[in-house]
């Protein structure tokens, strides 16, 4: 008997050409059997996910050190999936509530990138403690570290996010209809999608952007015209103009979206009725209509909050991971249903990981480098990229004495690997990731 996932994959392979039919003709640059379409989907885990308990190296030395230091927060074998073997032959296990993701790791659609974080340049414990090399500003602060994950600029503030700068490049290449933004958030405003020339669109999952209450009558048309005319006039109040700019985007984006979504058939994939499930369902529905929208390169932004586990961490993970894991798995299924699994890469970000040493109240405090997940048909999965830290308080990977891992892979390297696959050429990567040149390996190899 087929597993549900196996069935979907088989189905997509056999009816792939049929599945494309609702989208009309393939774009002119399409190659091979699939459309020329690529999407990056960010899932931001707000609050700082303690990735020490997301995925674990299971060699005896690591697990023993982990168990000893983690105390009340230590996961036991009962709290973990079965031990899996990476492509390099190393044992790892996931939190048991991430069973769907572990399954995708086994089937090589999902990869782990270990100990990623904000860096200006490569850093060691000695350099950090002696303050002899540039370090990211305001380490361990939620707001600053969230922004550094979204901008890749560790030295300070930035007016644009890395995905926004990628969207700026995409806009110059004629991939997308100019009528719709390349970056779409279903989780509110984020700096990640702000470009220098391009701006994001935000949707609430399941809700239209179309302004309600208008019809074809003359008086309704007059009211509509009055509203629209106002958007073009300068009130002399800069913030009023900023508000008008947003309403103008709402109206134009609503027109593009409404027309495309109204023609789409319902997805068969069933998504969990959770916030992250509904966000990913909305993203899948947009991907479904990419051809109608005229989009061939899109970046999406979703989020799940609640990871600031200073106390009660085990229970909190046991509540959050069962929201995250099935939603991501459903989203992968939906990309298979659409024949788009190879065209969509999903990845996680988070403020930071947390201290390996527990804190009063069965939680952990703000730390630094964290493990992240990358998923999609194009991902070279079943592997851990980068290096797990050595579990020792005050050890070689610890910024101080509580197990705050100094990252061994930078956000720039992580993002550049995603963006290279997405279609940002080497020549443009330096603009998207200005610190990338500080790291010898510009690509991590988990895609393509």
């Amino acid at each position: 008997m087929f597993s549900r996932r196996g069935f979907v994959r088989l189905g997509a392979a056999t009816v792939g050409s049929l599945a494309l039919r609702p989208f009309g003709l393939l774009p002119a640059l399409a190659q091979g059997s699939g459309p020329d379409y690529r999407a990056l989907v960010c899932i931001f885990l707000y609050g700082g996910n303690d990735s020490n308990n997301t995925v674990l190296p299971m060699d005896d030395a690591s697990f023993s050190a982990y168990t000893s230091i983690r105390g009340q927060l230590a996961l036991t074998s009962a709290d973990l999936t079965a031990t899996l073997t990476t492509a390099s032959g190393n044992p790892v296990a996931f939190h048991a509530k991430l069973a769907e993701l572990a399954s995708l790791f086994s089937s090589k659609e999902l990869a782990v990138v270990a100990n990623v974080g904000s860096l200006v340049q490569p850093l060691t414990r000695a350099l950090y403690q002696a303050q002899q090399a540039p370090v990211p500003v305001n380490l361990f602060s939620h707001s600053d570290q969230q922004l550094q994950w979204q901008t890749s600029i560790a030295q300070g503030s930035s007016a644009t996010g890395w995905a926004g700068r990628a969207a700026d490049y995409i806009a110059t290449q004629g991939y997308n209809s100019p009528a719709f933004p390349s970056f779409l958030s279903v989780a509110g405003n984020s700096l990640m999608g702000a470009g220098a020339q391009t701006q994001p669109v935000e949707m609430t999952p399941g809700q239209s952007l179309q302004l309600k209450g208008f019809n074809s009558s003359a008086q309704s048309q007059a009211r509509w015209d009055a509203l629209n005319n106002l958007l073009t006039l300068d009130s002399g109040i800069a913030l009023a103009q900023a508000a008008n700019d947003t309403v103008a985007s709402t109206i134009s984006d609503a027109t593009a979206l409404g027309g495309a979504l109204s023609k789409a058939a319902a997805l068969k994939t069933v998504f969990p009725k959770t916030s992250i499930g509904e966000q990913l369902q909305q993203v899948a529905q947009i991907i479904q209509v990419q051809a109608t929208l005229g989009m061939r390169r899109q970046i999406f932004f979703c989020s799940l909050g609640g990871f600031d586990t200073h106390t009660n961490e085990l229970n909190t993970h046991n509540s959050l991971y069962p929201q995250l894991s099935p939603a991501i798995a459903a989203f992968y299924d939906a990309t298979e249903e659409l024949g788009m699994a190879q065209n969509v890469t999903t990845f996680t970000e988070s403020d930071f990981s947390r201290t390996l040493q527990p804190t009063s109240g069965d939680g952990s405090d703000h730390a630094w480098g964290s493990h992240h997940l990358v998923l999609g048909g194009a991902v070279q999965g079943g592997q851990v990229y980068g290096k797990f830290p050595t579990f020792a308080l005050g050890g070689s990977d610890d910024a101080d004495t509580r197990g705050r891992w100094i990252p061994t892979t930078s956000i720039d390297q992580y993002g550049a690997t995603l963006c290279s696959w997405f279609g940002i050429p080497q020549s443009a990567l330096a603009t998207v990731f200005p610190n990338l040149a500080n790291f010898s390996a510009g690509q991590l190899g988990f895609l393509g």
Partner: protein
Amino acid sequence: MKHLLWHLGIASALMAIPAWSQSSPAPMSDRAAARLLDQATWGPTPASIQQLQSVGINAWLQAQFAAPVSDLPDQPSMNAAGKTNTALGPVQSAFFQNTLSGQDQLRQRVAFALSEIWVESAVTVHPAYAQPVYWRVLRDNAFGNYRDIMKAVTLSPAMGEFLNLANNNKANAKKGTAANENYAREFQQLFTIGLVQLNPDGTVMLDANGNPVPTYNQAEITDTARVLTGWTYPVAPGATQKNNNPAYFIGQMIPVEAEHDTTAKTVIGGVQIPAGQTTSQDLDSLLDALMQQSTMAPFVSAQLIQHLVTSNPSPQYIQRVSSVFTNDGTGASGNMQAVIIAILTDPEARAADDPNATPNANFGHMREPVLFMANVLRGLNGTLGASSAIQNQTNQMGQNLFSAPSVFSYFSPQYRTEKGLPGPEFQLYSTATAAARADIVNSILYGTLDKSTQFDLSPFTSVGASISALVDTISYTFFYHGMSNSLQQAVTSAAAAASSPQKAAQAALYVALTSGEYQIVH
């Protein structure tokens, strides 16, 4: 004469109102009164404009400081099913009722601003009964002293739960645990001094290399976490005191010396806290050290200005207010009444009272959803019935009352618009929530929000037959009697095409209330 008020010293403003100010020969214009009321209340009404005009700004402020205090209703701890009662609706709708009928408008506005600095949230503090109790801490200290706010919030059990000061035990070698850093960090980063040292005018202090100077380092956070060990929840009625009491949200947290780290610590500014102090003594030492930080005055002052008056104050405005925060004229710092007077009577806040003043294009701030909803309710004569679900509307716009997504509130004081202008409230304003905002206006004017929330459009429909009278009424109610020419033209064209006086009023109000000009308190 209209400039006279600006030049009053703070010390004299705090004294009893001299007779001459009450007989000032230049009464406030509608515009001046309405602007102040948009900054200091939930929105001007014809009655509040007339009241302010009749007594003048100083007497009005003093009356507000003394006004009877609105309350939020206590909630049962358990629901009918015997489970923890987490239903916040009654508290949220009572909040909006207070915006309509409470006499303590300024106190509510300041307490609300404080609630977005000293954030505590039902997202993790689940029992509904905790929220009115926490709100009272901010309300009762809104016109007091900032140090008292620091202490009262720190010892409030809801904050203790939210940022884990409650049951923050000293390090335990056997369990391998350290003191919890959560409150130590956010107390300083968000509530008192921020991450970088500030000059008195709010600009960032730079070192010799041009880099910002941090306020603290990680070692000081770790030590501050140890200072803040040893507090537990108040003892619930009928319960027995333990070292770690279970969550209970009424009263103040209590010290437990057995769980307090009594070793010496180094905290903010390098201040040494000696070994051997009690839990309470350590807290007072920390509060004293924070009050000594010159960064606190501009850090707090700038945020209060942003909440009440403008997102983008000049350094000079911040400096004038922060100098009052530092010293109210009697040598005391943190005097909230003096700070509020300084913010609201500052020349920069009052400049546009004069319609002929040179406009400052960057002045003002966006009505966040709660301000937008309250202002519309007051301007359109809203009434809230017992089952009103008005709070659902602000939730649609991204602001669920008492439920900020994290301690970082609904929006950051540093958030900027797409063009780079500071505009904190714009963090909540997206293509999605802009549509929600317009759709709420549509529902109010052409349908209903919910059957228990009513509006009275008769002041507008009754003049709908005369477009100029209609425009004038809308301008008086929502635009300080100073609607721009372009908005007047847009409103006029929409009203002129309408088929009845009622439809003219609806169309005119729709265009006015969805305009960018209305979204910005200016």
